[in-house]
């Protein structure tokens, strides 16, 4: 079961060091490493490019296991419906991430130098507002397939770090709110078998 989680997490986050895989899974590093080694023996994962990643065989195996999981749980309809709701929020999250990096004034987009605290607070406020609305989508997903609950934990953690003053957690880091959201997007596509 948790081996499936490790395999599927790699499918959604791409090449990653052990610590990042474990964090994304919400599992103990030693357990995750043991699963990774087993998965590597089966040829599903590989250690390259400074981290663990999926092989082509592993990708096909994950698609098979994920489809089975979805059908056993009878969750296809609920996940598909939550995906529609997610896709309403996704453009706004991308607008906000872009507004965090670039600021338009007199029609010219310039890099946000973060010198204007009121602008940054405005962007953060809209992030927090979107996060409240994303809560319903996350709850629906978690009810359909409990493994999706991990995203709620990771999104909240990123937003809390940003609220605490470390604003890089909005859209600048590999564990930023945008990065976790991007992985949730990939997870939904992979779970439902939708090509990007």
């Amino acid at each position, binding site marked *: 079961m948790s081996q499936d989680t490790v395999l599927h997490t790699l*499918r*959604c*986050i*791409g*090449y990653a060091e052990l610590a990042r895989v474990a964090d994304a899974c919400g599992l103990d590093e030693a357990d995750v490493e043991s699963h990774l080694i087993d998965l590597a023996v089966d040829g599903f994962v590989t250690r*390259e*490019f*400074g*981290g663990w*990643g*999926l092989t082509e065989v592993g990708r096909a195996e994950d698609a098979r296991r994920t489809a089975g999981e979805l059908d056993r749980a009878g969750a296809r309809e609920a996940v598909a419906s939550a995906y529609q709701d997610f896709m*309403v*929020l996704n*453009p*706004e999250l*991308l*607008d*906000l*991430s*872009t*507004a965090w*990096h*670039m600021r*338009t*004034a*007199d*029609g*010219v*987009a*310039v*890099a946000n130098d973060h010198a204007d605290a009121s602008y940054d607070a*405005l*962007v953060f406020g*809209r992030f927090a*507002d*979107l996060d409240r*609305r994303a809560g319903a989508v996350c709850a629906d997903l978690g009810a359909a397939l409990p493994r999706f609950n991990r995203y709620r934990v990771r999104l909240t953690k990123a937003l809390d770090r940003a609220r605490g003053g470390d604003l890089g957690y909005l*859209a*600048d*880091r*590999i564990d*930023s709110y*945008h*990065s976790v959201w*991007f*992985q949730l*997007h*990939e997870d939904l596509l992979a779970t439902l078998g939708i090509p*990007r």
Partner: protein
Amino acid sequence: MSHIHRLDGLAAQPADVIGGKAHGLNELLRLGLPVPPGFVIDVAACRQFLRDGRFPDGLDEALASLGAPGVAVRSGAAVSMPGMMDTVLDVAPDRVRAAVEAVFASWHTPRATTYRELHGIPHDLGTAVIVQAMVFGDRDQRSGSGVAFSRDPSSGAPELFGEVLFGRPGTDVVGGAHATRPLADLASREPAVWAELSSALRRLERHYRDVCHVEFTYESGRLWFLQVRPGGLVGRAAVRVAVDLADERVIDRRTAVDRVSERDLRAARTPRIRTGDVLARGQGASPGVAAGRIAVTADSAARMAAAGPVVLVRPHTSPLDMHGLAAATGIVTSRGGPTSHAAVVARSMGKPAVVAAAALTVDAAAGCVRAGDRTVPEGTFITIDGTGGEVVLGDPGTTAGTEDPHLSRLLSWTDRAAPSPGSSPPGG
């Protein structure tokens, strides 16, 4: 007083009454240019609907006099909010009311609210709704749609620029799922449409005394304009257009100077790619110039990066491409837009990025990139400009704003000194 106004180019309601898009359609009609017949429901009607749910009188009559079997229902606020509100295409007459209500209601979507917050647009403005007879860019072999600029929007050079999709509707031009063709391809395929489009853009420039761009569809060889917008160029392109228009005596030098903002002047200093063998053009999504060999998969980018700089070229990106993005010196995607995941990630890593290079197709299996009739194998050296959106073969080098002859001339017409990067605008 009626809130429904025929688009006829005769009555000239201002943009704050009927929205910017409808205002532009009236200007087109006034110039005798072809616009699908239609009417506009004004912003006051939207405000009333959002306030108390009351729908404006006269919709049925307006629809009956239009007599079209299918209509397009588009939003058009007084202030440009591109892509934020709904558009409903090919609506049957009995469904128009619901479509108009949907467009009204889309003013209050959280995404539109966020956009207004970020751009300082009042929440109570409301949007106008344009209802027009449908024209079909996918009607037959002699149909298509595109966007056209009266001057090159990246450099400001005085030549028509744009993209066209043959046999496809306008939504596909911006959708990014189809590889577009350069606008100039129209010249051989539909010479009459090309000639009419070129002459219309010249007239629009004289009318607005500024660079313009239009959205158009042609149906069975007949051209229709769906939108016109003047201005909108920034940085070095804005400088060049202002100087050229003054030289062409379309505007005087004082107007030229006034049109260029301090921000344009500072943006004009950003190093840009030199003109070279342009493989494709997209939108700049993360500023800066990057040069390296093409990699068409994240894995090959990560492998090739050991031997020198690499530019990752993908249709779009997913988290599975992150190790390739990390290894690359720059990123190109054929799809997406300036707010795609790829653009956000590129900016977070501080790497130049070009997105929506719609003429490119990436063939990962064959290990190459195609642009029109050209095939470029992985490993080919390219340079990309994350400001202007150019993808150029080889390494043409960069040019600083200080060498720009148009900028020097504009500055010679003013007592403004060239701003240095990072300096504050005068008085600010």
